[in-house]
Every structure is written in structure tokens, then in C-alpha cells.
């Protein structure tokens, strides 16, 4: 290997080792990717705020004989409000998901166009009358500049991400928990606020009365068998929606936890990539499962 080329290659390698080390931003990108995958599943739950209201109004029996003088009251008259609430929920969750998306873009933003131009330099010089050593020097100068720019940009991205997530962590926790609570409260505690799950619980009361009372009056007929099946099918659908609500909760809480771990592992702008991978691994797995559950239950 010509001496000039060998020295340039060595310098590039040493500079890369000193400035880059083994740090990468893959975990931030992976987190953003998962948040992005969730984006398609979440609006279905928001739309079902009004959906539950509409279904509740269907579980009404009229008495036998002529129609009653006054129509039975509607079980749910809050359809318009619930529609608005569902749309608000979409807007709120999009703010959170857009934030993760922006972090992911910042983590993966590269000087790709620049790298490409450096790669073409050696062929650009091939047909010129530059000596081999001169060609090598020119190419090495480009490679060095490319490596420096990449490291400068990576350092900038790390500092910026550490700065943003440090300042935002508290708000991410509040918003993610708030969204989780609006859809489903913690399963092991008495709820302190209303939620989508409260609507589903009301729907459950109506389903039970709608089917159980007529079946108790006529339990052994052929019609009862069919009605029983229909009852089971409605209950299964309701349970799938409840499971989806719990999966939504898990997803939001995992996002908050992962963000908090990201914050603690990047304090002072230092990324401990090994620790970060270890810390975020279970949360990313939990989120992948929650997204899969949401997609399964919302089918």
C-alpha cells in the first residue's frame, strides 16, 4: 500500500475511534418506529367513543302489544360530545406520536448526500493525469472530511436529543399517563376518572339485561339457543374492545417508561448505549406486544 494512502487510512480510522466510540442512536430510532407503528391502531379506539354510545341505544326492548305512548329513553344522548372527545383524543395522541417521530428523525438524520459525493471522487480522478498517489491523497482528503462531518453531526444529534428529552420527560409522562387513563384506568385500582372503559362497562350492563331477561322468560325454546349465541357474540366483541383498551394503556405507559429510561441514560449528553439497550429492551418488547394485541382485538 502506498505510504500516503496508508497514513490517510490510519488517520481516518483513529479519528473515527476517538470521536465516535461505540455510540449509536439506534434505540431512539427503534422507539420512534414503534410509536409510528401504533399510529394506525390508535384512532380506532378514539372513534369507538361514539361507537359505544350508538350501540348502547340499540339494546332496547319494546313491550308486547301496541307501541307505548312515550318512546323509551335513549341510553346514550352524548353521541356528539363523545365524537368530539374521540377527535380530541386523536389530536392529543398525535402530539405525543409526532414528538417521538421528530426524535426518531433527529436520531437517524444523516449526511447521506455528502457521503455519496465522496464515494464518487476516486472514479472522478481516474481518467485524469494525476498520479496514483495524488489520486489517493485526493480521495483520502474527501474520506476524512466525510468522517469528520458524520461525527460532527452525530455529536450534534446526541446533544440535541439529550437536551430535548431531558426537558420534555415530565410532560411526556403526564400526557402518556393522561391518554392511558382516558382509555382505561389502572386495572388494580379504583378509577379516579371516567374513561372509554366506563362506556364499555355501561354497554355491558345493557347487553346483559337485553339478553338475560327475555331468555329467563323462555329458556328452552329453539329461539333461545340462537339468542344465546348472539349474546355470546356481543359479549366476545365487547371483551375484545376492553382488551384493546388495556393494550392501549400498556402502550402509552411503555412509551412513558421508555422515554424516562432514555432520559436517565442520556443525562449530561452521554449515551451509555449498552445500558440503554438493556433498559429499553423490555419496554420495546412490551410495546410490540401491545401493538399486536391492539391490532388483533380491533379486527
Amino acid at each position, binding site marked *: 500500500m502506498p505510504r500516503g494512502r496508508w497514513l490517510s487510512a490510519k488517520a481516518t480510522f483513529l479519528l473515527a475511534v476517538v470521536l465516535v466510540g461505540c455510540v449509536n442512536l439506534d434505540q431512539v430510532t427503534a422507539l420512534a418506529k414503534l410509536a409510528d407503528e401504533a399510529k394506525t391502531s390508535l384512532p380506532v379506539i378514539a372513534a369507538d367513543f361514539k361507537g359505544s354510545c350508538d350501540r348502547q341505544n340499540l339494546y332496547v326492548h319494546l313491550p308486547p302489544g301496541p307501541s307505548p305512548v312515550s318512546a323509551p329513553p335513549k341510553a346514550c344522548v352524548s353521541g356528539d360530545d363523545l365524537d368530539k372527545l374521540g377527535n380530541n383524543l386523536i389530536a392529543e395522541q398525535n402530539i405525543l406520536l409526532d414528538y417521538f417521530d421528530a426524535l426518531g428523525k433527529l436520531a437517524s438524520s444523516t449526511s447521506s448526500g455528502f457521503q455519496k459525493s465522496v464515494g464518487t471522487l476516486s472514479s472522478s480522478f481516474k481518467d*485524469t*493525469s494525476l498520479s496514483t498517489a495524488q489520486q489517493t491523497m485526493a480521495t483520502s482528503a474527501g474520506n476524512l472530511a466525510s468522517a469528520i462531518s458524520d461525527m460532527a453531526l452525530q455529536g450534534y444529534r446526541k446533544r440535541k436529543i439529550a437536551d430535548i428529552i431531558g426537558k420534555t420527560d415530565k410532560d411526556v409522562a403526564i400526557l402518556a399517563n393522561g391518554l392511558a387513563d382516558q382509555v382505561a384506568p389502572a386495572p388494580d385500582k379504583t378509577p379516579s376518572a371516567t374513561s372509554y372503559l366506563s362506556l364499555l362497562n355501561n354497554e355491558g350492563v345493557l347487553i346483559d339485561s337485553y339478553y338475560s331477561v327475555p331468555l329467563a322468560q323462555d329458556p328452552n325454546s329453539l329461539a333461545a339457543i340462537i339468542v344465546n349465541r348472539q349474546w355470546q357474540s356481543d359479549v366476545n366483541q365487547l371483551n375484545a374492545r376492553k382488551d384493546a383498551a388495556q393494550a392501549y394503556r400498556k402502550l402509552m405507559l411503555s412509551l412513558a417508561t421508555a422515554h424516562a429510561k432514555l432520559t436517565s441514560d442520556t443525562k449530561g449528553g452521554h449515551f451509555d448505549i449498552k445500558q440503554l439497550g438493556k433498559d429499553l429492551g423490555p419496554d420495546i418488547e412490551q410495546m410490540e406486544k401491545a401493538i399486536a394485541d391492539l391490532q388483533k382485538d380491533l379486527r
Partner: protein
Amino acid sequence: MPDQTQPLTAAQAQELAQNFHDIAAAIGQYRLVQVTVLTPTQQYQLQNIQLQCIQYSNTFISAGLFAAQSNLATTLASIKQATVQANQAIATIKDVDKALQIATAAAVLGASIASMNPSAVGNGLDGLVKAVAGSTTAASGSTTSTSGAAPSSTP
């Protein structure tokens, strides 16, 4: 102001929604247990009361959710601001990339000039300008002129 209506807190709304839910569930249970005793008219009347209770519960659920959402307003504004910061940082990266492209062009041009061969410099310059123009196009997504201005605009 004593006669002004106070909006419900999320916790108060939850309590009321739960109470009406529980009453509706109890009425449903009574309708089932007393199914052989109640007349169709009585069943209908009880069903209507049950529906009315569920309606109240749903109204309180809705009020509670509005209260919870308005509590998040400040947080939403802060996270929006963080997103803007991240996007501004991405824009800065693009600018840094562009500046570094020009710096590389200067470095490589220096190497070709060092050959002291006018033909090599000319050809090298041409190849370099093309490479830089190509990279600028790839980075910005727009067509850039190959007039040779890039190397001479070295800072």
C-alpha cells in the same frame, strides 16, 4: 360566586358515573331475578328507568373526559414545542451537511492543484464539481447548477 355553576372535576364525574352505572346494574339484576313476577309493563317501566340511569352515567363519563382533557392543555403545548425544537435541529443538520460539502470540495481541489499539472487540475476540478453538484442534489432533493461555483465559494 355562590350561584354560579361549578364544573365537575374528573374525580367527581367518575364517582357520579359509577353510582348511576351501579344503580342500572342493580335494576338489571332485579329485572332478571323477578322475571316470573314482573308484568311486561313493569318490565318495560324498569327497563326505561335502567336506560335513564345509564344515560346519566354516560353524560357524567363524557363530562369527566372533557375535564381530563382540559387538564392536559399545558402539557400538550410543551410537547408541541419540543417537537418544533427537534425539527429545527434536523433543519440545522441539513445546513451543516451543506457547509461540509463545500469544505470537502475545497480540500480535494487542493490535492489536485498540488499535482502542478494544469490538465489534471482541469479534469479533477470538473469531476469534483460534478460530484459535489450530485451530492447537493441528493441532499436537498433539488437540481443544482454545475457551473463550478461550489469550489470557488469556499468560506
